Each structure stands twice: as C-alpha cells, then as structure tokens.
C-alpha cells in the first residue's frame, strides 16, 4: 500500500522505531524500580538529550531536530510504553512546557544559557505556575517579583512543580504589577530562575498516589534575587504562558490515549493466556465485548486528539479543541485502565502487573493540568453559555 491515512511520515516511523528500541532497552527494565524508589536518574535526561529526543521541535540552529509536532506525538506515545507515566510527564514538562517559552520569547543569550543545555539533557527545566490558591487561572498568581535596583526579588509559593527537586532552572510566573481594570492577568511576567539561587527552598511532595517516579515539589521562594536578564520577554507578558498550559493539556491527552492503548494491549495478552473454567479468559463473550468497547472508545478519542494535534501543528488549535481533548482523554483513559485492571482479576490488584500503576497514574489527569471541572467551564464558555 503506497498511501497512509495516518498523520505520520516515514521519518516519523523511523523516529518511532528508534524511541521504541530505547524504551525497551533502557527504560522498561527499570520502571518498577524507579516507581518504587520514587526517583529516576538524571542520566535519563542526559541520554535522551544525547539521542536527540529533547529538542525534536527546536530549530537545528539551536541544537534541535527541527521536526514538527507529530514528532513530539511519536515520542510521547512511545514513552508511555516504558511503564512509568510519571517519567513521561517529567520529560514532557521539560520539553513541552518549561522550555518552549524560552525559544519563543528568549534573547539569544537566554536561549544559549537555558534552552541549549536543556535540549542536550545537561540541565533539567521545570515550570512553576500553580500556587496554593491559583489553579488554572494565571490571573490568580500571587508570587510577586519586586524591583530591587536592576534586579528583581521574587517571593511566593509554587505547588505541584514537576521536576521540582531535580530541575536546574524554573520557568516561573510572577506578578510584577497589580492587575489593571478588566485585564486581571495583566501584570504577570515570566522569569527564568536558577533553582540553586539563595532563597529557593524545595519541598518534595511526599505520598502521591501515582506518578511516583516524578519528583513533584513545592518551591518556596523568599526574596530570591534574579537579574534583569532573567525576565523572559517583556514585563507583563505572562499570558504567553497560556499557550504552554494548552500545550500541557494536549500532550497529556496524547499520553492518555497511548497509555490506554498500552493497557488494553497488555490486558488482551493476559486474557489470551490466562485460563478459567476450561477456556482462555479472552474467549468469554463478556470479555470479547469488553475489549471491543475499550478499543472503540480509545480509537474515537485518539482521532479527536489527532485532529487537535493537526490543528496545533498548523497553529490553529482553539481553546475549545484542547479542552475537549483533555476532558475526553482523561475520562476515557481512567475508564479503560479500570476495565483493563478488572480483566486481570486478583492479579490486577497486585504489583506483579503494571496495570495498577497505570490506574493510579491516570487518576491525576482528571484533577490536574486542567481538571475535568475547569475543562467543562472552558467548553461551556466556548459554547456561549
């Protein structure tokens, strides 16, 4: 067959094969251990940088591959086969949320200092938007950056920062001016903060029920001094980050679909070899029908997400498109993985198979990175309600 209805070119397929080999050889064998240890080594970032995975959409001039968004889709679909959604989300925070603003808004010096080492995997980036009282709405940010000579002093608390412990640099949203008039989000600026700066206290978020391998942390900033050069783009352009928030939701949707597919595939494998009442589990009509339903829901969601990826690639993805993807894929992945877990019977409840980990991991998607409720609000507003 000389044509394909899939959005992936032969170059994408080649990338997929390369990533798959890497995941199978260098991630899958360690996922369980890293999940248990609640840490994966920084070498993972270095190695992925070495393999060119951390700058897929970064221009070649800055050390990247110059590829399109579909390359990103391929990378994250394959990373979801590693067995640690947390690790995948950590890498995505680095490549798709923390660093794109630097490319888009940064000076040559900022790109040199903050982006290039991130692409190489030599420095890890995190982003800090959310605060205890500021969720999806950037306008609620209450971390303040106050002028001090030619520097800024930043004070505030950021919560649930992915890579918060290991990150070298933080793309941080802070208020530099009071909101004026109707523009509540005006007065928010973006800073690149070295996490080793005095006044930055990192408190690891202990006891997460899932996404265990990723070091989520609170960042407590007390009069953290940053130079003028730390300001990314102009003062008050914090709303640029809304793009990254949308990007976060889209890549999470891609990951959710891929993980759901993975767990369906593994459950079907299990059902084919596990025997009960004289036949394979897969041979019972209810299981056949269950698998049929799971595969259908995944496929429908995949196509919705792919449509949105196409729009994103072209720069035309709307807030409504993204919200629907996030809401649909989070719900679908939770449901699919729950059904897949049921297929394993008692083994689904044990740590012998990775399905219980996937069940815990997917739960985060409905409350974070754009909760179900916040996505419904966006959709409702987009519908003119």
């Amino acid at each position: 067959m000389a044509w394909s209805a899939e959005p992936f070119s032969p170059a994408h397929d080649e990338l997929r094969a390369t990533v798959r080999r890497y995941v199978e050889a260098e991630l899958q064998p360690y996922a369980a251990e890293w999940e248990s240890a609640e840490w994966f080594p920084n070498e993972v970032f270095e190695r992925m940088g070495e393999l060119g995975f951390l700058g897929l959409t970064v221009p070649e001039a800055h050390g990247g591959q110059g590829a399109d968004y579909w390359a990103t889709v391929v990378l994250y679909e394959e990373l979801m086969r590693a067995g640690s959604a947390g690790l995948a989300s950590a890498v995505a925070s680095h490549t798709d949320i923390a660093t794109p603003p630097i490319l888009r808004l940064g000076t040559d010096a900022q790109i040199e200092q903050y982006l290039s080492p991130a692409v190489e995997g030599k420095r890890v980036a995190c982003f800090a938007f959310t605060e205890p009282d500021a969720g999806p709405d950037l306008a609620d940010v209450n971390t303040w950056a106050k002028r001090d000579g030619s520097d800024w002093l930043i004070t505030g608390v950021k919560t649930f920062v992915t890579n918060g412990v290991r990150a070298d640099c933080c793309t941080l949203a802070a208020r530099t001016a009071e909101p004026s008039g109707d523009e509540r989000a005006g007065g928010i600026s973006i800073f690149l903060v070295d996490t080793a700066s005095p006044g930055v206290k990192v408190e690891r978020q202990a006891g997460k029920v899932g996404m265990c391998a990723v070091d989520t942390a609170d960042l407590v900033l007390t009069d953290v001094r940053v130079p003028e050069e730390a300001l990314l783009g102009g003062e008050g352009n914090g709303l640029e980050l809304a793009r990254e928030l949308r990007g976060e939701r889209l890549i999470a949707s891609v990951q959710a679909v891929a993980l759901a597919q993975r767990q369906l595939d593994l459950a079907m494998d299990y059902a084919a070899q596990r025997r009960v009442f004289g036949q394979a589990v897969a041979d019972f009509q209810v299981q056949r029908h269950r698998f049929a339903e799971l595969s259908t829901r995944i496929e429908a969601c995949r196509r919705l997400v792919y449509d949105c990826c196409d729009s994103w690639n072209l720069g035309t993805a709307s807030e409504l498109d993204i919200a629907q993807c996030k809401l649909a894929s989070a719900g679908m992945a939770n449901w699919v993985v729950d059904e897949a877990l049921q297929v394993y019977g008692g083994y689904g409840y044990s740590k012998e198979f990775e399905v219980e980990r996937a069940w815990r991991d997917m739960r985060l998607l409905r409350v974070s990175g754009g909760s179900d409720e916040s996505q419904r609000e966006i959709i409702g507003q987009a519908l003119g309600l």
Partner: protein
Amino acid sequence: MTETALPLYDDSHDALRARARQFVDTEIVPHVGDWERSGEIPRALFAKAGDAGLLGLKFSPQWGGGGPDYVAAAVWLDEVARPGFGSAGGALSSHSELAALYIDTEGTDEQKERYLKPSIAGSLVGALAITEPGAGSDVSTVSTRAHRSNGGWRLTGEKIFITNGASCDFVIVVARTADDPHRGLSLFVVDADMPGFTRTRLSMLGFRATHTGQLVFDDVVLGEESLLGTMGEGFYALMRRLAWERIYMSICAVSAAEQSLRTAISYLGGSARVADRQASRHRLADLVMRVAQARAIVEQALRCYVGARAAGEELDKASRRLVAQAKLYTQRVALDVADEAMQVHGVAGYTATQPVERYWRDARLGPIGGGTDEIMREIIAGSL
C-alpha cells in the same frame, strides 16, 4: 401465617453499635494514618477486639463467643469499616468471618478448643486460603494437593492473595484429596510453624496494612487432626459459606462509601471554588441515592441470610441472587463514591495528606475480591 421481614436491628444491636463505635474510635481511628503509612497493624488489635467481645459475635458462649448473632457481626463490621481504613476490616474480618467461621461450622470440638476459642479471644490469628496462582474464580481447579501419607497427609502447593496469610498463626487450606473437580477438595488447618510451610508478603494496590500473603506448602506433614470437616466436602463447605463473605463485604463497602460521601460533602462545603459547586453537588446527589440503595439491598440480603439460618434452611435461589446482587451493586458504588471524593478534593486528594486516595485504592478490591463482578453477574443471570 407467613413471617414478614423482621426489623433487622434490635436494642441489643443498637447497644453493640455504640460499643463497637467507641472501640473503633479509640483503638483504630487515631492510628489510621500511621498504620497505612507503615503498612502495619499491630497484632495487639486482635486481642483488644477479642477482649471487647467483638470477634465472637457469631459464635457460641461455649467457645467464648457472644452469639450466635450474624446481625451483630454485621453491625460490628459496619463500624470497623466506618473510618475508611480498609486494612483493619480486611484483617479482622478475614480472621473472624472466614477463618474462625470455618472452624466453627466444620470443626470438631478439639479443633474448636484449639483454634476457635483463641481466635475469639484474639490471641490467635487465622486466614483462609483458597486462591492459587492458577486458580481464582474457578475453585474446582485448585491444585494444591494433600497426598495420603502415614495416616495423615503431605501437603504441597501454593496459595496467593491470602489476607492475613503472611503473618497468621493458622491457615485453613483448600486442597485436593482426589481428582474429581468438585468432590475432590478438602479443608485442612495448617499451623504457621509447620515445617515446609513458608510465606512471603505481597504488596497490593490497597489494603496496604493487611498482611496479604503468598503461601508455599512443600511436603507439609499433616496429621488426622488437621482435616477440617469431611474429606471431599471442601468445595461444598465453601459454597455454603461464600454468601456470608459477600454479605459482610457488602456491608463494609456501604460503610466505606458512606465515609467517602461524608468526606466529600464536608470538603465541598469548605471549598472556595464556587464555579465547581453545582456540578459536584449534583454528582454527589446521584451518589447519595446509589449509596442509599446499596445499604437497602445489603440489609435485605442480610435479612434473607439470617431468616434462612433461623429456619435451619439453605439459601434459596432468590436469596442467592440477592446476595450476588448486593455484592455486585455495593462494591462498584463504593468505588464510584471514593472516586468522586478524590475528584472533589482536586489535586490535594492525589496525595496521602488527604484520606481519599486510600478510600479509592481500598475500594478497587471490591469488584474483584470475594467473587468478581463477572462471577456475580453469572450467578444473577443463572438465577433469572
């Protein structure tokens, strides 16, 4: 004249409930966080429950029990499950409602003296081992073998996912004494210190402080006195007793669901996120309705169970269907309510600083353990 359904709880049950709640509030609730984190429930809890007369509610005073009163046992378990800490109920119920129960219904007086009395006192902890790596829902494929030997048996095989199995003093093992799938199974009481018996603790998604075990029997020598009940009757003994497991699991699920509801409603009441409120309120309203139905159906199943017992009868087809329906209905409701409680807490609920993630992980066992949802549907469909 046909007896109408009796009210389920009398004054003695109300008094017991108050006593049980006091016990749970004093001995369990203050420690839940620590025990979940450490993965350890102190052994002393069994003795404390025994001293308080809470482990022998189904059993005769001859053995130190306060029964037989199955409704009382249901009340006690309802209270144990109330704080939303599945491990306590899991450990205590597998001991008193499974292990001790089989000694009571199948055992000789010697066996009751040796195992039931101390179980009621809480000085011995028991487990029931049916499931194997290769035999779950289909009990007739159990392959742990008891070979006749020297007037006794030698036991060889493996059991998995056994609650209390990793630390119990004795375990009731379902083993094959003949090839016939159903008529070839027998029950044996195995002491933990018998040579050839080893076990490891398993790490599970929930019930983290319960000592779930993988048990290996390598030519364990059993004497005549280890046989529990009649040889070849093991499968039928299980079939008679499984209904009780499903009923008490259903009671525990409803109780846990009610705790999840209370937690969600309380958190939402304090929430500043006005935009979320109406939708959450409506979802909770739907769940309140389902939880109420869950409680109603399990109490009806309990009514049927104790009615049949009082009449000295086996459960009829309608009652067996009801028990399966109660189990099927209650477990999924408990999971859905726990899930909503998680959702209401937002990202804060994703860490162990809040109890909801524990409610949610514990609830996931319900549609699997004690008879999967699929098996319940088979039973229900088979009875229509």
